[in-house]
């Protein structure tokens, strides 16, 4: 983990309020793994408003070019300020944060389920696994066609993918979780990686309940320091004895066994 000020190579619009920012950073490309994130100071230099840094998953790493990227949705002030940055500007961030995913490479089949912007960390996971010649099925669920832009990235990998939209305007019509529910017996030997809104993760918990499925969720929580110092990003995790203990998403996560997470 290092504090960095690096050059933006591209801040491309991927959809309505959706951007992919490419950042030149040999350090991140050398040191970051799938599932990790960075935390960006979105306010200008010497200005503390908005106050806190914003966490973003690492979307892609292109080692050969020393470039990594984040995919982000404009939600509030911080992401709005990010969207204004241009090629050649610098971005102040710290990373890589959190733990890289420890893949179980004994398995051959992997199912990735992303909802909305939750697809962000799953893309790098897809790349890592397909480069290891693993069989990857990427299921993505969106409200509408706004995320269509990511298909060109998915096409670059050897993953199979299925896109669902709630309004049917793109890909298959319906909910990604309904597809999983209907087909769960087909995939119960797969390793699952899931990221998305709380309602989606809760629905998956229900689907997986009582089944011997190994599933990892990459979760979000409001953060202050991002480095494990403030205990702000706590999330309830059920331990083996059924007790709920608080873990830090930034330092102990952001990936957890989905069945152990308490989503409030």
């Amino acid at each position: 983990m290092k504090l960095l000020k690096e050059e933006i190579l591209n801040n491309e619009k991927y959809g309505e309020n959706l951007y992919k920012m490419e950042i030149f950073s040999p350090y991140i490309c050398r040191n970051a793994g799938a599932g990790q994130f960075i935390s960006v100071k979105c306010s200008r230099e010497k200005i503390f408003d908005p106050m806190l840094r914003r966490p973003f998953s690492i979307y892609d790493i292109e080692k050969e070019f020393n470039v990594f990227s984040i995919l982000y949705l404009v939600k509030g002030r911080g992401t709005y300020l990010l969207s204004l940055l241009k090629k050649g500007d610098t971005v102040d961030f710290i990373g890589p944060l959190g733990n890289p995913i420890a893949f179980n490479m004994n398995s051959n089949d992997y199912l990735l389920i992303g909802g909305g912007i939750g697809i962000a960390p799953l893309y790098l996971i897809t790349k890592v696994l397909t480069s290891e010649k693993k069989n990857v099925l990427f299921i993505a669920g969106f409200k509408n066609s706004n995320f269509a832009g990511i298909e060109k990235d998915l096409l670059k990998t050897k993953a199979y993918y299925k896109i669902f939209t709630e309004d049917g305007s793109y890909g298959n019509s319906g909910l990604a979780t309904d597809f999983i529910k209907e087909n769960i017996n087909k995939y119960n030997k797969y390793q699952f990686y899931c990221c998305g809104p709380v309602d989606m993760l809760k629905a998956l918990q229900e689907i997986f309940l009582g089944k011997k499925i190994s599933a990892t969720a990459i979760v979000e929580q409001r953060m202050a320091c991002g480095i494990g110092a403030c205990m702000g990003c706590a999330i309830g995790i059920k331990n083996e004895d059924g007790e709920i203990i608080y873990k830090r998403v930034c330092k102990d996560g952001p990936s957890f066994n989905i069945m152990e997470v308490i989503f409030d």
Partner: protein
Amino acid sequence: MTESNKPNLSVRLGEINLKNPIVMCSGTFANGLEYSNFYDISELGAITTKSYSLKCKDGNKPPRIWETACGVLNSIGLQNDGIESFINDHLPKIKDMNADIILSLFGESCEEFRELALAVKKIKTNILAVELNLSCPNVEKGGMIFCSMPEVVEKITISVKEILNIPVIVKLSPNTGDTIMIESAKRAKNGGAEAISLINTLVGTAVDIENIKPRLGNVLGGLSGPAIKPIALAKVYTLSNENILPMIGMGGICTWNDAVEFLLMGANAIGIGTANFVEYCVGLKIIKGVSDYLESKDIDDVNKIIGKLSNKQIIK
């Protein structure tokens, strides 16, 4: 100026000597380990540990953080591993970093403070001071109660001083009103305290109108950051005018300019909290900024600006 032509930055708060007036606030710097990735934290005046209680504490239900205009609401609920774990697991690591340590303590009863003091008595490592967090607004039965009752402030201070040979700092809340704050500071002095830390967070909350629920799992939280700086500065000024005890002033300090404002208003040292979450090296930057400011004004000693704008008499 000193030999190196740099202004003197060392300050005294009663028996507490600091190599410079820049202190890290409790709960915002953990035990320094995370921050030692970025710089040599032994350069700081001191670091204040997170507040420790006798037994480990789980803390409050998430979410615990909500950002506000120029500030942050938190409801951590004093999550900590307990004093024994501090002594056995954390302290040896902090010792390796050579930082000067202020150990923050928190209890739910006068008796717990006494037992904490007994536990701290066993510590062999040199501790600069203990800070009694008598002001945390987050915990149900916690801090708020203690420092809104000046006689209890005195009682706790006495009971800790009876056991410990280490200087005691009492941390006060801005939530009690000035009369009680001043009275508590006086009682802390009667009880044998060496200094006052001021201010802890202001009680606040926020609402999610879309889902019709509070933003914080605990509903109420503590507000910190630049939003509270004018209030913190006024509290420091008010208490400084009373000339009771030396003070560590804190609340919203993000830059060296902020720090100088607190010193001028009567703080003998300043604490940095929330800014650590954003600018990980802010402590070092502020030390340098204060030093450069003094140099630019041809002032050879930081003590010459302390309380310049209040009726403070430098307490030796």
